[in-house]
């Protein structure tokens, strides 16, 4: 009997220990604490990694590692001939996550889709300002209120999006994080209990992982969603170890305290590549660093002057000094070469200081204001250093640049003012892989005062990009964007710097991890070797 007890105890102990030993955990060293877990109200990549890309799904999804759209919660869709009606056929049998704060009683259906979009567009909804500071910035930023006429429920598994005017990038927009689908049933539960703020800190979605716990500024814990419609993930637990310092992240991944890390310092890339245990993935980022000239103020209202200033900058040396070992691709166009419609025939101004000096002298250009910020951006790791090097190049052609340096937030505020003088360094990281997201967001006439830092409004360019937005014909769109790039090169509203190389570092025991061109950090499909 005693022996039996001992054997049973040993068996139980083995089962417990065995159970924990087989729980596969992936630790990701993330770069910052999330603002909250409601992806419709946040804009930071770190916020969205911890919510949209782990807990939620969308009607359409970006294919893992690409900017192509694939079915998500919508199994298929049709677009009407006039481009105004999108009909989505919803996936059946999709379950929302069961957590200790919510137990769904029904599967995902059309009501969830309507709720997810309408709450962002209805100022009378209790969700419009469910916390003191709620604002749906991405929904607004992508002009959704302007383009959306109505979301219509046809039946439980069919919804229609009716547009006010044709908008080709709409499908790509619906793959973005702000378009994540929430449970209307969970929202009703929160409304009933009066705990609306739980929507931002206790998320419920249909995604691959479900939320377990967040220790402020320290760690976020997720576990695999057992009911995930694509099947349960191979890893059991996913932990975000919040590690804001890039050097510390690199040290942690080298010490094996993290399996994956985001955003290494350019200076650490060589060291990480040399580590035999690590897999350093890299690709040309879907981004662009540039310097906007205010095209409405003299002398920068003259395209010849802008070209001359571009010609005076030794771009190769500048890129080498800024990006070092991490590397970057010289920008010939506003969009990166990996994006469809990139015009290979367009070349930006070549380095020619002698010609530049001649033109600038002829136009009597001797002084210019040059802007720099303190922030490290993927498309420009050091604005201040760039400003100094550009200043030195311009000095060689007889132009004295006065550098104005500011902290990031007031910097952008000052930069976007239509009467801001001089040359303003800025850049962009693509949201959805559509060229419209670069051209219209950064240089449309309507973006002046918001994100068109050149205050540039060119009728021919504007016509191209608006026509491209209004047609679904890919060949036509490509031709229009190619033409827009030629106009951009001719008018030179900005000095184009580079598309930076983006890195993602993982321990070699992690398999199935894919670097994402949109800069997302996704862990669906990953596995960790024992």
């Amino acid at each position, binding site marked *: 009997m005693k022996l039996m007890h001992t054997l049973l105890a040993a068996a139980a102990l083995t089962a417990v220990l065995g159970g924990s030993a087989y729980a596969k955990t992936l630790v990701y060293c993330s770069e910052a604490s999330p603002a909250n877990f409601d992806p419709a109200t946040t804009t930071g990549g770190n916020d969205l990694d911890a919510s949209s890309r782990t807990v939620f799904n969308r009607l359409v999804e970006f294919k893992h590692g690409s900017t192509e759209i694939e079915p998500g919660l919508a199994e298929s869709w049709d677009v009407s001939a006039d481009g105004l009606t999108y009909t989505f056929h919803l996936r059946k049998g999709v379950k929302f996550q069961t957590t200790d704060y919510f137990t769904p009683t029904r599967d995902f259906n059309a009501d969830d889709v309507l709720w997810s979009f309408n709450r962002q567009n209805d100022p009378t909804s209790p969700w419009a300002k469910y916390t003191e500071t709620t604002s749906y910035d991405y929904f607004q930023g992508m002009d959704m209120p302007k383009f959306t006429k109505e979301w219509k429920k046809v039946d439980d598994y069919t919804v229609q999006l009716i547009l006010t005017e044709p908008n080709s990038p709409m499908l790509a927009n619906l793959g973005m994080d702000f378009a994540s689908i929430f449970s209307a049933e969970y929202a009703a539960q929160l409304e009933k209990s009066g705990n609306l703020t739980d929507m931002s800190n206790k998320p419920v979605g249909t995604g691959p992982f479900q939320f377990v*716990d967040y220790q402020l500024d320290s760690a976020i814990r997720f576990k695999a969603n057992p009911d995930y419609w694509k099947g349960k993930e191979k890893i059991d637990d996913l932990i975000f170890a919040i590690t804001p310092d890039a050097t510390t992240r690199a040290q942690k991944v080298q010490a094996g305290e993290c399996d994956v890390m985001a955003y290494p310092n350019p200076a650490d890339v060589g060291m990480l590549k040399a580590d035999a245990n690590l897999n350093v993935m890299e690709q040309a980022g879907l981004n662009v660093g540039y310097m906007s000239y205010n095209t409405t103020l003299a002398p920068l209202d003259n395209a010849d002057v802008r070209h001359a200033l571009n010609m005076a900058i030794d771009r190769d040396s500048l890129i080498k000094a800024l990006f070092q070992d991490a590397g970057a691709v010289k920008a010939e166009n506003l969009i990166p070469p990996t994006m469809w419609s990139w015009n290979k025939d367009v070349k930006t101004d070549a380095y020619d200081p002698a010609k530049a000096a001649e033109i600038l002298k002829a136009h009597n250009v001797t002084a210019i204001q040059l802007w720099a910020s303190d922030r490290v951006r993927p498309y420009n790791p050091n604005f201040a250093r760039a400003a100094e090097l550009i200043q030195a190049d311009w000095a060689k052609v007889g132009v004295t640049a006065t550098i104005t340096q500011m902290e990031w937030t007031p910097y952008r505020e000052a930069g976007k003012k239509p009467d801001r003088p001089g040359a303003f360094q800025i850049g962009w990281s693509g949201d959805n892989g559509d060229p419209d997201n670069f051209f219209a967001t950064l240089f449309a006439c309507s973006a002046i005062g918001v994100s068109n830092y050149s205050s540039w409004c060119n009728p021919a360019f504007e016509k191209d990009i608006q026509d491209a937005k209004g047609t679904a014909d890919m060949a036509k769109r490509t031709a229009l964007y190619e033409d827009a790039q030629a106009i951009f090169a001719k008018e030179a509203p900005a000095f184009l710097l580079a598309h930076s190389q983006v890195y993602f570092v993982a321990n070699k025991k992690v398999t199935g991890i894919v670097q994402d061109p949109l800069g997302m950090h996704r862990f669906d499909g990953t596995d960790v070797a024992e």
Partner: protein
Amino acid sequence: MLRFILNRLALIVPTLIGITICAFGFVRVLPGDPILALAGQHGVTAARYEELKVQFGFDKPLWEQYFRYIGNILHGDFGQSISTHSPVIGEFLKLFPATLELSLCAVIFAIVLGIPIGIIAAARRGTWIDQGLMGTALVGYSMPIFWWGLLLVILFSTTLHWTPVSGRIDLQYFFKPVTGLMLIDSLLSGQKGAFQSALSHLILPTIVLGTIPLAVIARQTRSAMLEVMGEDYVRTARAKGLRQFRVVGIHALRNALIPVVTTIGLQVGVLLGGAILTESIFSWPGIGKWMVDSIYKRDYPVVQTGLLVIALIVMAVNLIVDVLYAVINPRIRVH
């Protein structure tokens, strides 16, 4: 004694009012505002900006915003973080134990090593031991925290693998905080190895944060000891034939400790300042890191409340030190 304490407490009120004005004013003097900080790379249109300004209450005159802030504080409402939407005081209470634990360990480290070093240096005045200890203390005092922290991490964590790189505990341990102090919570959790893990995570941050106070305490102890060792009563004690240990350890040390206690109290402000850097190096989830992030985000309620509560803590510690000083040195109560 009671009058002494009341006098000190009365001084706190105007100081507090001054601090609320500074906390409210400083963050608003910074260019930029939370709306733009939150907007992301798309920015906001002018119309939307005005709308959000009204929603956040930033359209009101500054004095009105200030009085509303004070009114709310008096009602116990410290506001909601603009970026996380959570009550600020709740976030503070979640993070403060981490800073408290680290600061306490650093103070203990500084006292336990600093006082004996000061005593030894004083007792061996002028010898190579004295010069060596004080030279090292000077180096410690001048050490830039960020550089010192990185150096220790490279040596002990990434090269020798003796200590973890950052964080408060290995992520394999998961339990709900009870006290917020990881050493205690890890013991309470009953999970095997959790306490050792928490302790090993504390070693480097404690050394980094405790280095400057350690140097200050060692130097202060040495100079205080030297002062009292020249006093008549110490000479008398020696003349009585007491052993060196009793002369130094009992007669001299007790009196020398009076200024050292004040020094330790003053180090609280230094520790909270140092915690900001130390927490950044070691990804230590405390209030230092929280405050810095909030300044970048122009999260007014967090910065205001953080500054106010930190100032309150420093004042409370100074008050305790004043009282303690009065207890161990009765002469002070007369003045």
